């Protein structure tokens, strides 16, 4: 999952998954950092080569937005898993399992279960009715301008939040992996990652982005599989031995293997977990960069098959994270993992270092660097996917429709694609600037907020639109804004912004909302506002347009 999972209910030990960089101590030092730099450079060269190679093929809107819709379902399935599994899954979730044992696995399960909603409710229907974006699906039966303005705004907000989180995370992570300290290194990392993602997207469009995702996902799966098998070999494929050794390596002892280590201390923290879980499970189906993947395949059936591939890959990956997390605690020890990074983000590289022969050995150096390079490739691929989704929403929904004066002639396809490229530069630039200012912020809250906004604003609108005959344009706008605004407002008055030690503004306290994740309240509000907006309006839904939507969504008639 492209996200930095975090759970820090009051009193929980885990403040952040990607905390402010620990200036005092780089985790490990030595020659493996030099090798890592070389491998990072290789990753950059390889991704740029892919971009230049495939980016030249086709310049139409169809090519830029969807890669020509001629990817196979396996290719798209791998790319979907690449979009979903970020460095935070590889490093963050594994670190959580390493530090908190059983409770870390709850993240893995939540992220996987979320895909069932994508599979059954979203993938085929969206592929059949839309063309490039989520708003296309709404515009099939609603008035164009208002729904495109609402849905386009929500999509840009979600991707921007997510993008900032990934980039700030990338800054800390790359610094961590390269063993550098200081603000300058992080700043330059953010600028470099931002610059690269702008190049990928403007030059290569969806085709290059998809190929980068595919290559990255294959690297990630191969790396995770190799490490998993290696851990299992070390324990002679005796899982009970692995679990016992992990419990032994953790200061919590046997409690490490039981639920409750990370959450479950107070009612608030349990509610917070439920809220986060809701946002993760429901938000995945509303993430613009996941939705836009369904347009890269020719048919709804291919979209379904790509989700099935993605579920298989994501499921296997999360099963492997369990072994890797336990292995890190068993072999490296929870204490060493925590010393290197309080949130456990370096658990996997440290595990690789240990498996390869330990500090100073050639094997250890090599595997540490390889793991770090995979994590870096993951970061690059994920930010590219996000930037693309964001610029498509901006150009196709906001610029070409919602904000276009009625007096002007309609935007041509060519202008729209030019605008998409320009907006990739603008959004990328904005993300770089915001990330530089956001470096001090708690990264994880941005991600959980992005999921909460996606779940509160996009999912209710999408589900109502596809399944509720009486849903109107007014209802669509109400449910989008009615999910978006409460999510943002509740976070502003939550402990992540003020009133807690780890807050954005630790000095002041104006929080009154007890939970860190707004999902528990804002998702039901999104559904509620959609209903109120529909039943309170004068406007009646057009049964003919709903007939068209139903027929198109289930049969694919008239699909692009």
């Amino acid at each position, binding site marked *: 999952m492209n996200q930095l999972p975090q759970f820090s209910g009051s009193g929980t030990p885990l403040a952040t998954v990607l905390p402010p960089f620990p200036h005092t101590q780089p985790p490990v030092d030595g020659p493996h950092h030099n090798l890592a730099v070389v491998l990072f450079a290789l990753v950059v060269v390889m991704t740029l080569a892919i971009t230049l190679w495939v980016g030249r093929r086709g310049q139409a809107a169809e090519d830029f937005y969807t890669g020509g819709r001629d990817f196979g379902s396996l290719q798209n399935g791998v790319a979907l898993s690449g979009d979903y599994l970020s460095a935070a899954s590889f490093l963050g979730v594994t670190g959580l399992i390493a530090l908190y044992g059983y409770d870390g696995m709850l993240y893995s399960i939540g992220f996987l279960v979320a895909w069932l909603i994508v599979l059954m409710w979203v993938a085929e229907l969206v592929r059949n009715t839309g063309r490039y974006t989520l708003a296309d699906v709404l515009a099939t039966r609603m008035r164009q301008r208002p729904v495109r303005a609402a849905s386009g705004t929500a999509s840009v907000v979600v991707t921007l939040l997510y993008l900032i989180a990934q980039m700030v995370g990338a800054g800390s992570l790359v610094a961590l992996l390269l063993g550098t300290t200081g603000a300058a290194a992080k700043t330059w990392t953010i600028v470099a990652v931002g610059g690269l993602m702008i190049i990928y997207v403007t030059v290569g469009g969806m085709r290059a982005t998809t190929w980068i995702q595919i290559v990255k996902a294959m690297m990630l799966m191969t790396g995770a599989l190799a490490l998993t098998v290696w851990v299992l070999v070390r324990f002679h494929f005796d899982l009970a031995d692995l679990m016992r050794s992990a419990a032994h390596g953790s200061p919590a002892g046997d409690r490490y293997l039981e639920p409750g280590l990370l959450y479950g201390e107070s009612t608030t923290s349990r509610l917070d977990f439920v809220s986060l*879980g809701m946002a993760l499970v429901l938000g995945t189906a509303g993430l613009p960069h996941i939705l836009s993947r369904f347009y890269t395949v020719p048919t709804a059936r291919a979209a379904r098959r790509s989700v099935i591939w993605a579920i298989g890959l994501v499921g296997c990956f999360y099963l492997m994270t369990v072994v890797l997390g336990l292995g890190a605690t068993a072999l490296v020890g929870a204490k060493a993992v925590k010393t290197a990074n309080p949130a456990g983000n370096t658990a996997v590289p440290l595990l690789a270092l240990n498996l390869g022969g330990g500090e100073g050995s050639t094997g250890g150096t090599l595997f540490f660097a390889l793991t770090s390079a995979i994590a870096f490739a993951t970061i690059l691929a994920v930010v590219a996917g996000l930037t693309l989704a964001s610029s498509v929403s901006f150009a196709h929904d906001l610029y070409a429709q919602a904000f276009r004066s009625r007096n002007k002639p309609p935007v041509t396809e060519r202008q729209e694609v030019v605008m998409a490229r320009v907006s990739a530069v603008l959004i990328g630039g904005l993300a770089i600037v915001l990330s530089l200012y956001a470096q001090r912020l708690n990264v994880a809250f941005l991600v959980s907020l992005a999921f909460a906004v996606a779940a509160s604003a996009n999912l209710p609108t999408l589900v109502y639109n596809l399944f509720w005959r009486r849903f109107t344009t007014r209802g669509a706008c109400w449910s989008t804004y009615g999910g978006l605004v409460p999510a943002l407002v509740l976070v502003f008055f939550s402990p992540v912004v003020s009133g807690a030690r780890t807050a954005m503004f630790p000095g002041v306290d104006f929080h009154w909302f007890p939970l860190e994740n707004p999902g528990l309240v804002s998702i039901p509000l999104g559904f509620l506002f959609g209903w109120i907006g529909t039943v309170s309006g004068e406007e009646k839904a057009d049964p003919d347009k709903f007939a068209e939507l139903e027929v198109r969504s289930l049969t694919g008639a*008239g699909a692009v």
Partner: protein
Amino acid sequence: LAQHEVTGSAGRTPRQGQEYDWWSVSGMAGSPDTDQQSSGFPGEPVHELMHDLIHEPIHEFMHEPDREFLQESVPEFLDESDHGPVHTARSDSQLAGQAGGHGGRSQRTGSTAFADADRSARSLRLPEDDDAASVIPGQRPSGTPGSPAGPLEEQDPVAAEVYREVQQSPAFQEIRRNHRRFVFPATAVFVCWYLFYVTVLAAAPGLMRTQLAGPFSVAWLLGLLQFASTFLITWLYARNARTKRDRAALGLRWDTQDQLR
């Protein structure tokens, strides 16, 4: 009305030596999504016409000045007597009696139908066209007819009529029922099962700690069962869609598109 005939039964003809991929817009086998299900629909007429007609300048008809001409000819599209050789028997019978019913609503006509016509021009690509397109993707018809920014706000009354008829047809109702009959209960089951899991972890720590085999406790069993149930539901859904919906949906798709010409 060349394009009318072209779009008649969009690309259902396997060319000699080619296996047709029924599931792919881009048509022929060799497209990435080909699989075991590429057998034909029994009893569909074969149209040799298509190969020649595909080279007709379809897009000429999409230009603005031609729209009015085509717009007026829309009722003819729906008059069965006019397109005997191209229409399938099935779609003809479904269409019977609808031709006259489009006068009620006042909206602009034509655009949606043309959009579909152009899309089907894509779906009509024959193998040789397909190859060409994959070499030089920029030159394919890029599927953005008429308005590049998306569907128009006003619905074509003829199209509305067709969609409403299809929506009320037993074939479509069957597809929808098969979809919902699986999706709704399956969603209820997995959501409840997930909530049960999360709740029972917090509510019954003693039970969760019960060891089954060595350090492997009830909690771990339930966790692994979550993985297993996700895979299982995915498989069941795929099977349900494959056996109960895909074939009917594809048939209905072409029929609907036929009627929209």
